[in-house]
């Protein structure tokens, strides 16, 4: 049996609405391999955000098992989980979530602060190359408020990629972009997946992206099935 990069087995999640226990994820099982581009579709409230919170190690409170590269992290300490996020997960959010009092460079460097790559001599070069490949090298010292939405999302993508994570988790990455920028960002994802072999999990409610990845999942009322 080969080890999947991600293997969810019978994962359920509940939350309390007042005194009532509501099940938001129902016995979800899921396998994602290296270099997959998985698209997870679902309406708001379907449980897809909860699912990626668990996949991205932001939420540790669930039932069932989650194996990441063949290992379970459910009972690990905050330090271990934080390090895992730092090294292996690159988040991209719908509303970019950049820090507005930091420059583009400083925003992209945030994951580096918490990694042990201090002695890495090529860090600066790495960063410049990454920004260049995303077409925002000339914006290095600008602040997010001086950039367009598309440029801001590229900064967020750079931040997600800087530590060479095993997986990119994108939550509605084009939700706040116009059609032109949406197209560009999606093409960028495709290149990252095909050329750079980056594993991507993307969550969206937009049907037009259904065929972008090689895997398509649908979440409905907490139940996940592969399409």
């Amino acid at each position: 049996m080969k080890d999947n990069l991600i293997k969810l087995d019978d994962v359920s999640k509940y939350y309390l609405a007042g005194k009532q226990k509501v099940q938001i994820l129902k016995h979800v099982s899921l396998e994602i391999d290296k270099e997959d581009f998985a698209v997870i579709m679902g309406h708001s409230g379907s449980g897809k955000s909860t699912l990626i919170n668990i996949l991205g190690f932001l939420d540790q409170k669930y039932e069932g098992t989650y194996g990441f590269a063949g290992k379970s992290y459910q009972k690990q300490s905050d330090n271990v989980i934080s390090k895992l996020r730092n090294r292996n997960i690159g988040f991209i959010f719908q509303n970019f979530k950049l820090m507005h009092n930091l420059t583009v460079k400083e925003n992209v460097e945030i994951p580096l602060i918490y990694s042990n790559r201090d002695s890495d001599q090529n860090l600066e070069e790495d960063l410049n190359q990454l920004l260049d490949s995303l077409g925002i090298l000339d914006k290095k010292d600008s602040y997010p408020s001086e950039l367009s939405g598309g440029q801001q999302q590229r900064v967020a993508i750079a931040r997600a990629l800087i530590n060479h994570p095993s997986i990119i988790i994108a939550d509605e990455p084009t939700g706040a972009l116009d059609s032109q920028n949406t197209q560009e960002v999606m093409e960028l994802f495709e290149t990252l997946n095909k050329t750079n072999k980056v594993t991507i999990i993307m969550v969206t409610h937009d049907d037009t992206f259904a065929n972008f990845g090689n895997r398509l999942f649908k979440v409905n009322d907490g139940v996940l099935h592969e399409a």
Partner: protein
Amino acid sequence: MKLKKLKAILLTALKSILSNKARNFLTMFGIIIGIAAVITIMSVGNGLKQKANSFSSLGNADGQISIQSKDLNSDQQPSFSKADIQLVETVPGIKRVKMLNKAFPTPVKVQVGDKSSEQNAIIQNSNHKFTVVSGHSISSDAFELGLNQVLISEQLNQKLKKYNHGRKLVFINQKGFEVDGIFEDGQDSEVLIPQRAYVRDFGSNPNQDLINLYVDKGFNKKATLKAAAKTLQTKSDSKSQVKFAVVDNKASMKFMNKIIDYIAYFIIFVASISLLIAGIGVMNTMYMTISERTQEIGIRRAFGATKNDIRLQFLFESAMLTLLGGFGGILLGEGICYVIGAFAPFKPVTSLQAIGVSVGVSVSIGIVFGIIPANQAARKNLIEIL
């Protein structure tokens, strides 16, 4: 900790403090006032003590023994011999003996024109150690006869020129003295008075031959000093003519120092209340900062910051805020000391210890009152804040 992380934490803290100047200044205000009060009172106390100590020849010695003639009518001032010193050094517990055979500065009231002030005078029988820069030194006849002639310092001469309309006359403890010459500033006194004149005019010789004694650690100071005096009295060659006695000059000094200390404690107590209130202000500001920056906490956590990283981030910020306040307080305190020094008859002296206490106290306030908000920031639920 990684250098990069430390740098990032410091820069973030600084940026955050600078981006909210008005609010943070108000937060720091209490710290500034409190620390300024601490610096001022410690420096004033220190200055007063130094001033008080300058009147005494004790310095940092543990005690003194005086030598006096048994015959009260004798003109002869007895003095310690080399043998006496060696004798004292054999007393168990005595670490060191220092002879004081110079004349000590004696406070006198000097009146020039209608201005009077307290000055230190040297009362001795020669011009020894005094360099006359204008006029002439006191003649040996004048010393011999005890004429009311004095030398004064350049500084005092300035007053003489200003208030005395050229008359070379000063009043010392209300007796008139003729000014013979002016000596260079830099002595620890402003007036040189012939000893005979002083004794005749004021009825006592303020100079005493003394030895300063230093007592070994672990020995009872009082008992050791008593034993030394007793040894001298029983074994000295001159024991039949003179009386050796432990000088009780520390008692009055101790009393004064104690009063200064009590005043200092009281003001520091009041300052502590100010600092306590300031600390609560810091806590409040940190809660505000943290709630404004929940998004930032979420982002940092998502990209690998541990709970500890977040806690440290806000602790540093809080400590930096209060440390800046502390620096402000030190500066303000120094300013107040400068003003006090300009008007009071003594100069406040800020010790390194006072600066250390100020820095320590301000940083501690930041940490103590920052820890609860910082913990709260670290414990925030990631899913809720992202």
